[in-house]
C-alpha cells in the first residue's frame, strides 16, 4: 500500500514540477490591452464574450469577459502570446498581440454546422491498452476489434453475451440462463489448468478486476464466471479489442496469459450537448423441457423398480407414499397428484433496460455522462437482477501539452438467485427429480388445498441435507418453496475512479502519461434457508439458516508511460514505449452463518440464532496481492512494408517465493506488407493490402492464491480440554515458478476491392511451460491430499479464418456478410509423474474414464459399448468370438458377469447389455473402448447484414460448433431408474418381461449396472444455431425533425430462434465441466437456452 501512495505522491510531484517549470518561464511585467467586441451583422456589442490570453500551447494564461457595452480590458503577461476571443454562436478569433494595444473585434456568427459533431477521419488506430497507438493496418499481432454498434441490438445485459460467437477463436459459453450469472470466456482454448482461465480485461487502459474472493460462497458465481463484468453497461462501450497472440498479450504480462479483452468506453467530443436515450425491453420464455413422468406413471414405475431388486412387492404399508389409501388422508391427498414441478417453477422472464447519456464539450472540457437502469426477471422463479450504473468521463485540455482525463464509474446492483443447495443441482434440477405424485401445497385431512407448502421432514425419496454451496450432493426438498421462500440476494456497489494525466513533453515526439485507478467493490450476500422449504425439524441446523457474506475489494493500480515517436523522415517510423506498472489488490471478507432463528420471517443472522455446530459460525479473511512490472517496447516501420515490434516485460509478483519472484518475458513480431512491394503494383487496382505476419511472445501467469510460499499454522476453531490448538494448514511451496505461455502466431491479411473483402487467417501455437496444477493430488501419507505445483507442458494449437465482405453495394442496397471459423486443440506434452494418469471409474455407474495421453488432444473419454437390453435368460449366456455359448467345465452355460471377481454381478434378463469386446464372458476394464472427445473440431459464426437506403437494416447471425461428443448427463439421470427420482417418459418403454425388445433396461432400485458410462449417453454435439435476427428501422430525418429530435431508430430482435442439431439433449452448447486435464463435456443442464424477444428504441436529442 505504501508503495502505491508513494507512487501517487510522485505523480503529484511530477505535476508540481510542470507548473513550477512553466511558471518560472514567465516575465513579471504586465501589459494592458483594451478593446471592444461587436457582432458582424448588426454591429451591436457582444456581451459576455470571453477574451483570453493563450500561450503557444493554447494554455489559458488570463481571461476576462466583455461588459454590457462589449468593452474589455485585459492585462497580458507576454506579448508573444495570442489573444483568443470567443462566444457561443460565433466563430472563435485568435489574434497575435505583438505591439497592438487596442483590439476592436468583429465576431462572425457561426454557421449551424460549427456546433455539430466533428467528424474524425483517418485510419482506425488500435490501442493495445498500453498507450501505443498503432494503425490497424500496421498491426503485427493477432487481434480483433469489435465496435459496439455491431452488437448493440442484442438484448445482452452484459458485453460478453453480446460478443458470443462473433469473433474467431473466442469461445464463450453461458453458465446458466439466470440473471446475473456469468459466462466463461476462452480465447484460443485454455492455456492453464489451475482454474484461472479468464482473459484479462482492460478498461480505458487499466486492468479491470474480475476475480472474486475464493471463499465466495455461492453456487452461481464460481471463479470461472464473469459476473462482475456486469458493471459496465453495454451502451457505454465504444469498442472492444481482443488480443489473441502472445506477442500482443505479452505487453500485459502476468494475468494476460489467457488473452486480453480491451474495452474502451465512450468519451465526449466537442460540440453541443447530445442526449441519447436507449430503451431495450425483452421477454423470454423457457422452451418446454424434457417430458417427465406424470404422477400416475411414476407410481407404477417405483414399485416395479423395487420389486425387481427385492423380489417382493413394495411394502406400501411402510412406504405410504404409494399406498393410495383414502383412509390415510395425509398420504392420500398429498401423494396422489400429477404435479408438473418444472412448470410450477418457471415463469416468463423480462428485461427492461433504460439508458440515458449526454455528451459534448467545448474547446477545453469534454464530457460523457450516462445513467442506466436495468431490471431483469429470470425464467426460473425467484431470480432477478436490478442494476443502476452511472459513468462520467471528463477530459480537460489544460493546454496543447497537458490533458487530464477522469473516468468515474459507479454501479449498484442487486441480484436475486435461488438458494444454493449444491453446486450442480439447483432448484430446477430438483424439479426434474422430484416425485410427481407429491403436491406442491399441503392438503388438509378433508382434502382441501391449503396455502402451506408441502414440505415433509422426509419421505421415501429422501430428505434435505445441507451440503454447502460447493458440493455436488443432492438433497430433497420442495423446489417451489425453495425458489419462493428461500433467499440468496447479493447487493454490490462498485466505484471505479480512474485519473489520467497526459503530458506532451516534446509535442509529437515524447509523451508521458500517468494513470491511477482505484477500484472499490463492496458486496454483500444474504442467504436464508427457511424451514418451510426443507421441512426439517426445528432442532437441525438446516432450519432457518441465515448466512451473511460481505467482501470489500480495494484495488489500486498505477501506470506510468513514456512514449517516444521521433520523426525519422519519410521512409521510416518508430514508436517506443517505456511503462511502469504497479498493482495492489486487497480483499477483506467476513461471513456469519447461523441457524434456527425463531421464525422464517427473521432472515438475517443478526436475529437471535444458534452457531454451536461446526458448520455454523463466523469467519473472516484478508488477502493481498501485489505486482510490479516494467515494460519496454518499440515498433519500427520501414517503407510502410517492413514492420517490426519488439518488447520486453519484467514482472514481479507477491504470490511467489523470493527464489522465483521475478520473470522476464520477451516478445517479437513483424509484418511484411507484400502489396507494398513494387512488383505487386500491377495488382493494386484490386488489391488494397496483402500482409504476412509472424509473432513470438512470452507471458507469465501467477498462481491464483496468495501466500503460497509460507507454511502456516492455523488455529482450530474449537478447543481441546480448554486449550487451543494449531495445525500446519498447508505445504510451503518453495518451488512454485511462473507459468509461462510461449505463443507463436503466423497470420495473413488480404484486403481487396476497396475494402469490400477483408480476409484474415491465423495459425498459432501457445505452449504453456511449467503448467500450474492447483490441487495436484498427492499421496495422503504426506499429510496432505493435494498440493499446487508446476507440473508440465501443454499446447493449444489451431487456426482461425475470418472474412468480412460486402458482396453487393448499390446506392440503395448494401449487403454485408461475415463468416468466421476456428479450430483449437489442447495437448499435453509432458506432465509430472505425480499427476494421476486417469480419472473416472468404469466399475461404477455413471462414470466415464479419462486417460492422460501425452501427445494426444485432451478431452477424450472412454467407456463401454452399449448393445441394448438382454431380452431373456438365453441372451445372458456368455458367447465366444463365433457367437457360440461358453460352457463351464461342468457343462453348464456361463452367465455374463460384471467385473469378476471384485464385483461379480451376474447379468439378468432386462439388464443393460454391454459389448464383451474380448469375449471372455466378463464385462470389465478390458471391454472399455474409446467413445469420443468433448472438444468441438470447429467453432464459429456467420451472418449477413442487409441495409436498405440506410433506413432499414436486417441482421442475422448464426453460430455453430462442429464435431465433439457430449456426454448427455441429463439423459443418464432421467433414464437410470436407480432411485426414487422422477424419470423422463423414455422409461415408459423399459424392459418389463422376458421377450421385450427395447433399448431401455429394466428398473432397478439402487442395484445393478444399467447405467455404466457407455456410448448410450454419448452424442454428437454439433449444432448450428440461429442466434439472433434483428430488424432495425431508422426513422426519416424529416419525420424525426418534426418530433423535435435528431435521430430515432427502433429495432426488434429475436434470439435463439432455432437450433439445428442431432443432439437429443436440451442444448448442445455445453462447456466442459471441471477444470484440469480430465475435464469431460457432460451436459447436466435440463434447461435449453431461452428464446428472447427484444424491442429497442434509441433517440438522440
Amino acid at each position: 500500500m505504501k508503495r502505491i501512495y508513494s507512487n501517487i505522491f510522485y505523480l503529484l510531484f511530477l505535476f508540481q514540477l510542470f507548473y513550477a517549470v512553466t511558471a518560472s518561464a514567465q516575465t513579471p511585467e504586465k501589459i494592458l490591452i483594451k478593446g471592444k467586441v461587436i457582432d458582424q451583422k448588426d454591429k451591436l456589442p457582444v456581451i459576455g464574450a470571453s477574451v483570453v490570453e493563450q500561450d503557444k500551447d493554447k494554455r489559458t494564461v488570463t481571461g476576462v469577459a466583455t461588459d454590457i457595452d462589449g468593452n474589455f480590458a485585459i492585462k497580458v503577461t507576454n506579448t508573444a502570446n495570442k489573444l483568443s476571443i470567443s462566444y457561443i454562436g460565433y466563430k472563435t478569433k485568435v489574434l497575435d498581440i505583438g505591439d497592438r494595444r487596442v483590439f476592436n473585434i468583429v465576431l462572425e456568427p457561426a454557421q449551424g454546422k460549427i456546433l455539430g459533431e466533428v467528424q474524425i477521419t483517418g485510419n482506425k488506430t488500435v490501442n493495445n491498452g498500453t498507450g501505443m497507438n498503432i494503425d490497424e493496418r500496421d498491426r503485427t499481432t493477432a487481434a480483433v476489434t469489435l465496435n459496439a454498434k455491431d452488437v448493440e441490438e442484442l438484448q445482452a445485459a452484459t458485453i460478453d453475451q453480446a460478443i458470443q460467437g462473433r469473433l474467431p477463436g473466442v469461445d464463450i459459453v453461458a453458465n446458466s440462463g439466470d440473471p446475473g450469472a456469468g459466462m466463461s470466456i476462452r480465447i484460443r482454448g485454455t492455456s492453464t489448468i489451475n482454474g484461472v482461465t479468464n482473459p484479462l480485461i482492460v478498461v480505458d487502459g487499466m486492468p479491470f478486476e474480475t476475480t472474486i474472493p475464493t471463499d465466495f460462497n455461492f453456487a452461481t458465481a464460481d471463479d470461472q464466471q464473469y459476473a462482475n463484468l456486469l458493471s459496465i453497461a453495454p451502451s457505454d462501450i465504444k469498442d472492444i479489442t481482443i488480443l489473441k497472440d502472445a506477442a500482443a498479450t505479452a505487453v500485459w504480462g502476468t494475468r494476460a496469459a489467457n488473452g486480453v479483452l480491451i474495452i474502451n468506453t465512450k468519451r465526449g467530443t466537442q460540440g453541443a450537448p447530445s442526449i441519447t436515450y436507449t430503451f431495450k425491453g425483452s421477454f423470454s420464455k423457457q422452451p418446454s423441457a424434457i417430458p417427465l413422468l406424470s404422477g400416475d406413471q411414476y407410481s407404477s414405475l417405483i414399485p416395479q423398480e423395487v420389486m425387481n431388486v427385492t423380489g417382493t412387492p413394495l411394502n406400501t404399508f411402510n412406504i405410504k407414499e404409494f399406498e393410495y389409501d383414502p383412509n390415510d388422508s395425509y398420504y392420500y391427498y398429498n401423494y396422489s397428484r400429477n404435479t408438473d414441478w418444472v412448470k410450477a417453477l418457471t415463469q416468463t422472464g423480462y428485461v427492461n433496460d433504460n439508458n440515458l447519456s449526454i455528451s459534448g464539450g467545448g474547446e477545453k472540457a469534454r464530457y460523457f455522462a450516462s445513467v442506466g437502469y436495468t431490471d431483469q426477471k429470470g425464467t426460473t422463479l425467484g431470480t432477478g437482477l436490478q442494476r443502476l450504473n452511472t459513468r462520467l468521463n471528463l477530459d480537460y485540455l489544460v493546454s496543447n501539452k497537458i490533458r487530464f482525463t477522469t473516468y468515474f464509474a459507479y454501479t449498484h446492483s442487486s441480484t436475486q438467485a435461488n438458494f444454493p443447495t449444491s453446486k450442480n443441482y439447483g432448484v430446477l434440477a430438483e424439479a426434474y427429480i422430484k416425485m410427481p405424485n407429491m403436491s406442491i401445497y399441503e392438503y388438509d385431512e378433508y382434502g382441501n388445498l391449503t396455502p402451506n407448502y408441502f414440505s415433509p421432514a422426509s419421505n421415501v425419496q429422501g430428505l434435505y441435507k445441507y451440503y454447502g454451496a460447493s458440493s455436488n450432493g443432492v438433497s430433497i426438498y420442495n423446489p417451489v418453496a425453495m425458489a419462493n421462500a428461500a433467499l440468496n440476494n447479493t447487493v454490490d456497489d462498485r466505484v471505479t475512479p480512474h485519473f489520467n494525466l497526459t503530458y506532451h513533453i516534446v509535442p509529437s515526439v515524447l509523451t508521458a502519461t500517468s494513470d491511477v485507478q482505484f477500484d472499490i467493490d463492496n458486496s454483500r450476500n444474504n442467504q436464508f434457508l427457511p424451514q418451510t422449504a426443507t421441512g426439517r425439524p426445528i432442532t437441525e441446523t438446516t432450519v432457518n439458516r441465515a448466512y451473511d457474506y460481505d467482501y470489500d475489494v480495494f484495488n489500486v493500480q498505477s501506470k506510468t508511460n513514456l512514449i517516444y515517436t521521433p520523426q525519422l523522415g519519410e521512409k521510416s517510423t518508430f514508436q517506443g514505449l517505456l511503462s511502469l506498472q504497479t498493482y495492489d489488490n486487497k480483499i477483506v471478507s467476513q461471513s456469519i452463518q447461523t441457524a434456527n432463528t425463531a421464525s422464517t420471517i427473521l432472515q438475517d443472522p443478526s436475529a437471535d440464532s444458534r452457531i454451536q455446530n461446526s458448520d455454523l459460525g463466523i469467519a473472516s479473511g484478508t488477502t493481498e496481492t501485489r505486482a510490479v512490472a516494467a515494460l519496454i517496447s518499440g515498433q519500427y516501420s520501414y517503407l510502410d512494408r517492413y514492420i517490426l515490434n519488439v518488447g520486453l516485460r519484467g514482472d514481479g509478483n507477491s504470490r511467489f517465493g523470493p527464489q522465483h519472484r521475478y520473470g522476464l518475458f520477451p516478445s517479437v513480431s513483424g509484418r511484411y506488407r507484400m502489396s507494398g512491394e513494387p512488383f505487386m503494383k500491377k495488382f493494386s487496382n484490386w488489391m488494397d493490402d496483402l500482409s504476412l505476419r509472424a509473432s513470438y511472445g512470452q507471458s507469465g501467469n501467477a498462481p491464483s492464491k496468495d501466500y503460497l510460499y509460507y507454511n502456516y499454522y492455523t488455529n482450530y476453531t474449537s478447543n481441546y480440554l480448554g486449550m487451543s490448538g494449531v495445525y500446519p494448514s498447508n505445504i510451503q511451496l518453495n518451488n512454485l515458478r511462473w507459468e509461462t505461455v510461449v505463443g507463436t502466431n503466423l497470420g495473413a491479411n488480404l484486403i481487396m476491392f476497396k475494402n469490400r473483402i477483408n480476409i484474415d487467417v491465423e495459425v498459432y501455437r501457445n505452449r504453456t511451460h511449467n503448467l500450474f496444477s492447483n490441487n495436484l493430488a498427492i499421496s495422503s501419507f504426506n499429510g496432505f491430499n493435494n498440493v499446487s505445483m508446476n507440473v508440465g507442458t501443454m499446447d493449444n494449437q489451431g487456426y482461425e479464418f475470418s472474412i468480412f465482405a460486402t458482396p453487393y453495394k448499390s446506392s440503395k442496397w448494401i449487403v454485408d456478410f461475415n463468416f468466421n471459423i476456428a479450430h483449437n486443440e489442447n495437448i499435453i506434452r509432458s506432465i509430472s509423474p505425480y499427476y494421476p494418469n486417469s480419472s473416472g471409474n468404469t466399475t461404477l455407474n455413471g462414470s466415464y474414464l479419462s486417460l492422460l495421453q501425452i501427445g494426444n488432444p485432451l478431452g477424450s473419454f472412454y467407456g463401454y459399448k452399449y448393445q441394448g437390453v438382454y431380452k431373456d435368460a438365453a441372451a445372458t449366456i456368455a458367447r465366444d468370438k463365433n457367437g457360440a455359448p461358453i460352457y463351464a467345465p461342468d457343462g453348464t452355460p456361463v452367465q455374463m458377469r460384471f467385473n469378476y471377481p471384485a464385483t461379480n454381478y451376474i447379468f439378468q434378463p432386462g439388464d443393460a447389455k454391454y459389448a464383451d469386446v474380448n469375449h471372455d464372458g466378463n464385462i470389465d476394464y478390458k471391454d472399455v473402448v474409446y467413445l469420443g472427445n468433448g472438444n468441438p473440431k470447429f467453432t464459429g459464426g456467420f451472418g449477413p447484414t442487409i441495409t436498405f437506403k440506410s433506413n432499414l437494416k436486417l441482421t442475422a447471425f448464426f453460430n455453430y460448433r462442429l464435431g465433439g461428443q457430449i456426454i448427455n448427463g441429463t439423459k443418464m439421470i432421467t433414464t437410470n431408474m436407480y432411485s426414487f427420482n422422477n424419470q423422463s417418459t423414455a422409461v415408459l418403454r423399459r424392459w418389463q418381461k422376458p421377450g421385450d425388445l427395447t433399448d431401455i433396461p429394466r428398473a432397478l432400485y439402487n442395484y445393478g449396472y444399467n447405467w455404466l458410462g457407455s456410448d448410450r449417453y454419448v452424442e454428437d454435439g454439433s449444432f448450428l444455431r440461429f442466434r439472433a435476427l434483428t430488424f432495425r428501422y431508422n426513422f426519416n430525418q424529416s419525420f424525426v425533425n418534426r418530433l423535435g429530435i435528431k435521430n430515432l431508430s427502433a429495432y426488434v430482435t429475436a434470439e435463439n430462434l432455432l437450433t439445428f442439431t442431432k443432439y437429443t439433449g436440451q442444448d448442445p452448447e455445453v462447456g466442459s465441466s471441471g477444470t484440469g486435464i480430465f475435464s469431460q463435456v457432460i451436459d447436466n443442464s435440463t434447461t435449453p437456452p431461452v428464446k428472447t424477444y427484444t424491442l429497442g428504441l434509441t433517440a438522440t436529442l
Partner: protein
Amino acid sequence: MRKFKIFKIFILTLLAASVCSCNKYLDLKPQDGITQQDFWQTKEQVQSAVIGCYTGLLTASSSGHTIPDFMFMWGELRADMISASSSSTLGSSNDELNVISDNILSTNTVTDWAAFYRVINYCNTVIDYAPNVLKTDKTFTQAQLNGYLSEALTIRSLLYFYLVRSFGDVPLKLKSTTTDNDLVQLATTPQKTVLNQIVTDLNTAEGYAVASYGTNAYDKGRVTKYTVNALQADVYLWMDRYADCITACDKVINSGRFGLVAGDAGWFNTLYVNGNSSESIFELQFDTQLLNPFYNMFLTSTKRYLAEPNIIEDFYGLDSNDDNDKDIRGADAAVHTADLTIWKYVGLTANTTRTVDISYAHWIVYRYADILLMKAEACANSGRGQDALDLITTIRTRANALTSNGSTIQGTDQHPDPTDVNGLTDYIVAERAREFAFEGKRWYDVLRNAKRNNYARIDILINTIAKSVPPDMQQSAINKFMDHNSHYFPIFQHELTTDPNLVQNPFYK
C-alpha cells in the same frame, strides 16, 4: 530543454527507487495464520501444536469423517454387530453398505486413510520442530519437551497401529511435510516393521510421559504413562508377545489409579454419559464446542447404522422370567432394543437420548476393562488359563452377565478348561464383544484371534462373516475370506494413482 532534463532525472530516480523497494513491496505475509518461520519460538506454541494433534483427531478430514468415525467404521462394519440389512431409510452410503457386506473395492471411501496420515503429519511436525524450541525459549525444560514428545509419539503410534491392523502393510512416514521439497512417494513398509517402529516409539514415549497432569480431565484426555502402557499391551497382544503384554497390563493394574466402575444403576451414566471415569485410561474429549459425529451416525433420521437385530439373544442372553435380570451392558446400554438404535454414544439414560446440542459423549480408546481382558487373552495364550478365567469373571460379575440355568435363563457363561486355549479364546472373544460393543474393537478382536498361530482359528472369522453379510452374498464372502489378504482393506484408489511405488494388496488387484 531544462524541463526535459529535470524530467529525465525524475524518471531515473523513480526507476531506481522502484527497483530497490520492489522486494520489500512484494513480500506479503498472511494475516490469518502464523508462518512456520515465526512459530516454534516458545513453549506455549509447542503446547498448542500438541493440542492441535488432539483436535486433529476430532475434526473431520477432507473425507468428511472424523477419526473416531473411522475407528468405528473400521472396527465394526465388517464384524457382526451392525445390521446387515441395507434398508433404504438409513443414511449410510453405498460405500458403507459395501463394507458391511464385504464387497470392498479400492474406490471405497471408507478405506481412505488420509484422515490418519493428516494427524500423523501433525505429530511428525511436533517431533521434528519442538526440540529446537529449547534454544529459543530458555524457560522451556527438557522434561516439558519430553512430555510433549511422548504425546506426539503415542498419538502417532496409535494411528499407525490402526493402520496396520486395517491395511496390513502401510507406508511409514516419520518425517514431517513442511515444504514441497518434503514430498515423497513411498512404498509400503511391511506390517512387522511398522509394528516394531511402534514398539520403539512407545518405549521412548513411556520414558518421557507424565504419570498425571494433576487434573482428572487432562489425565483422561491426554496421553499419560498409562495410555502408553495400554497401547503397548494392545500392540504386544497383536504381535503375540504375551509376556510383554502382561507386563504392560500389570503396569496399569499396579498403578492403583484405575478400577472398574461399579455395575450399579449409575454405571452407564458414569462410564459413558459423563465420561472420564476412574475406569477410563484414554478417551477423546468432545465438548459443546466440538460435538461428536455420533448423533448423526446413530440417532437422526439420517442415521447410518442400526444394531444387528438379534444382538441381545446372540451376545447377551435373556432371562425369560425377569426382565430386570439382565446383562447391564446389553439392552439400554449398547443398544436400544425397541428400534435397534446404537445407544452407547447417544443415550442419556435408559430411555432418553442426548439432544444435538449436548451430543458430546467421549470416544473411549482404552479403559480398565480392556486392560483386564487383554491380560486375560495374553494369559490364556501363555499357559495361565486360570488367571484368564478369573479376569473374565471379574468383568462378568461387574456386568451382571447372565449365567444359564438350563431353563428360563439363556446365559452367556462358558466353562472352558483352563488348559483349553481354544475354549478360552472363544470365551474371551465373546466377552470382549459384550464389554466393548460398538467401541470399535470387535473386528480387530476377531481378526487378532483368528490370525494367531498362522490362522489356526480362521473359524472365528468365518462365523462372524456368516452373521454379518446379507444372505445372498454370504457364500462369496466366505470364499473371499479364505484368502488372508482379504482381511485387510485395499489401498485407496487415490493413493495408487498418485504413487507408483505403492502396490495394491494382491487380493484387490
